[in-house]
């Protein structure tokens, strides 16, 4: 039987319902008003997202340092508060992947590059930026999208076709820092030994072998140094060998790392690595760079934009480094292209504010200022030709012409666009490491890698 509700309880209940209904209406109309507010601004306004707070996850890299240093300017301009978290590269790659995958939007903006874009765009974890670029109410009229190097914008596009469609489709990130891969050599060591700057791979291998273990200014030097770590970034300096010999990772949906060209490329690379310190087989770019800066090596192949580190005031090798194009092979010269860029989390709850930060961080002014703090190479044509860039590199020999040469003629992302590419890259890099540490013969390691890659991409 129904419990008797007294008249008092009935009124109280009705009152509560009315209040709830009023509150709900108030909330909805409040939301509508706010929505209408932002829609009404037909022109771009730096203050449109004032009061919002953004969280960034960045790789420990000069790009992140320059962003941090210039941040107060952005906060004053827009009234948006920005929190930055940085991590060393290995840990950064893992954390950003887990964060994006979780879909919680805990970070709004992050650093990314081509193969990472492939991994994140396919499942929809990152935001396509083209609609934002095209939206005049969200993009500052002075931003000048056309000023970016076309090659770098193209490198940030992918239409999500597995193993195809790179260079077209959605824009997944904004380039802020470019690196091609160059051959660094110690001018003083080569001069003392009477060795010419090597032009081909065989010349480089011979020169490194000749210099390996010799004494220079009281220090025993190694002929060569490079990354040997078993993760995919090692394939970047390796690209100067891979592409030059015509080696490819995947052809027609099947692994091609054990093709005759692939075997030749790894054999030559392993030959060169014999003139590197034994520990180099586990070096990441950081350890390799430190080794070269400490003056322990005659040759080094890695990202050309490490120059600021070589030419810093307190660098032992300041003024002694020569910058050359990557060696020439049967297929010409080859260089990978790594473009550290800014990407937007598709789960971000502050996309408008994030887009403002992204524009500002890649604007002409900010990128020009970033040169002085070591952020190179510039991704905008105007910034690359700016007096600031010329001045910053004035004492660095032919650095300025070399990197522009590499970008103009050789640098490209040489590997297949695919959501699983990072795993493919890890497998290939591990096989190369097995060869360098002497644990495996070249053909054996690459055949095994080819099987694993086929299993990973099927």
């Amino acid at each position: 039987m129904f419990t008797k509700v007294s008249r008092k309880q009935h009124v109280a209940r009705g009152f509560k319902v009315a209040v709830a209904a009023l509150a709900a209406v108030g909330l909805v109309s409040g939301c509508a008003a706010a929505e209408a507010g932002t829609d009404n601004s037909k022109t771009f306004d730096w203050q449109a997202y004032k009061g919002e707070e953004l969280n960034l996850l960045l790789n420990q890299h000069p790009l992140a340092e320059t962003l941090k240093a210039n941040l107060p300017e952005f906060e004053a301009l827009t009234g948006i508060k920005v929190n930055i978290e940085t991590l060393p590269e290995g840990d950064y790659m893992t954390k950003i992947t887990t964060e994006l995958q979780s879909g919680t939007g805990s970070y709004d903006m992050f650093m990314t590059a081509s193969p990472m874009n492939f991994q994140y765009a396919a499942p929809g974890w990152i935001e396509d930026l083209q609609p934002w670029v095209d939206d005049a109410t969200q993009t500052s009229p002075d931003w000048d999208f056309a000023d970016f190097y076309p090659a770098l914008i193209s490198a940030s596009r992918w239409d999500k076709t597995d193993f195809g469609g790179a260079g077209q489709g959605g824009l997944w990130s904004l380039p802020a820092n470019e690196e091609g891969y160059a051959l660094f050599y110690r001018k003083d060591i080569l001069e003392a030994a009477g060795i010419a700057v090597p032009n081909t791979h065989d010349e480089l291998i011979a020169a490194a072998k000749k210099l390996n273990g010799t004494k220079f200014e009281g220090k025993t030097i190694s002929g060569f140094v490079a990354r040997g770590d078993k993760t995919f970034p090692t394939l970047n300096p390796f690209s100067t060998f891979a592409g030059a010999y015509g080696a490819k990772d995947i052809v027609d949906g099947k692994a091609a790392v054990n093709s005759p060209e692939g075997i030749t490329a790894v054999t030559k690379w392993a030959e060169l690595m014999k003139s590197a310190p034994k520990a180099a087989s586990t070096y990441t770019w950081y350890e390799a760079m430190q080794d070269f800066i400490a003056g322990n090596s005659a040759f080094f192949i890695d990202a050309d934009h490490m120059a600021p580190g070589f030419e810093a005031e307190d660098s032992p090798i300041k003024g002694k480094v020569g910058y050359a194009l990557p060696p020439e092979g049967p297929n010409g010269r080859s260089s990978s292209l790594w473009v550290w860029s800014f990407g937007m989390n598709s789960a971000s709850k502050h996309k408008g504010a994030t887009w403002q930060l992204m524009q500002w961080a890649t604007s002409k002014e900010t990128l020009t200022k970033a040169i002085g703090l070591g952020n190179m190479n510039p991704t905008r044509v105007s910034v690359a030709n700016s007096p600031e860039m010329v001045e910053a590199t004035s004492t660095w020999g032919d650095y300025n012409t070399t990197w522009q040469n590499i970008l103009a003629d050789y640098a490209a992302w040489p590997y297949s666009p695919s959501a699983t590419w990072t795993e493919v890259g890890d497998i290939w890099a591990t096989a190369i490491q097995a060869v360098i540490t002497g644990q495996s013969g070249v053909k054996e390691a690459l055949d095994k890698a080819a099987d694993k890659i086929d299993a990973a991409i099927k």
Partner: protein
Amino acid sequence: MKHSKYLPYLLSAPGLVLLLAILYPFLTGAWWSFNSYRLNRGEAKFNWGENYLTLVTSGEGIHALFITLVYTISTVGIETLLGIAIAMLLNRGSYGAFFRLLIVLPLLLPPVVATLMWKVMLTQNGLVNFLLESVGLPTSLWFNGPDTALASVILIDVWIFTPFVILLAQAGLRSVPTELRDASAMDGAGPIINFFSVTLPLLRPVLVVIIIFRGIDSLKMFDIIYTSTKGGPVDATTNFHVLAYLDGIRSLNFGMAMASLMVLWALTNFVSSRLLKIRRSEALN
């Protein structure tokens, strides 16, 4: 005493909730291990245990099993022997609270911090090699050499966890009544017979506890290995746990990662149940 007939249920409810909270991720993981599940490739597809087959056919699982067992047996063996030996030495005098604190220090550090410390010292041109060279001893590649990486990682584990064994062994030794040892000494038993026939049998219960703790910990060791070598060079230090991490978090292949972890779980379960059985029979004696 009068109490609500729901009291037993209320009292055991938190435990049940905790059990469900543990069972849910475990059963989900077990389910995923039977699926082809890559995080950025869409939904999980049932694959009839193909992941387990791949572990065997690709050789990765066999290799991980080998590394796991070598690591566990080495660390447990060395730590137990070293720990008991040091505990016996400490037992001979009153070394006081100061030494006890000193001995325990490696254990107080988080394993990752200790490993990073050693990683810096064990580089090719690092501190340890420099000291070895200055006394004319051969240097080593430590974490960077394919032949020396596993030994180096075992060394770190021994450095960190031997104090744990020492603490337990000290407690165990103190429970051995001195009258027994004095009595057997009076009967003409030398120190060696004394140790093997008197002390050791009485230490057995503590020994089993030591092996249970260190054994299970070593079977699933991750921090030390990943921090120092990330499982490398190539796969010289990749045990099941590291393999699962590389598959799951680096390659986003959750199906394979769960398969590795389920194998690890089965292994750990087997080892611990054997050891607990021994312990129970000890207790009964």
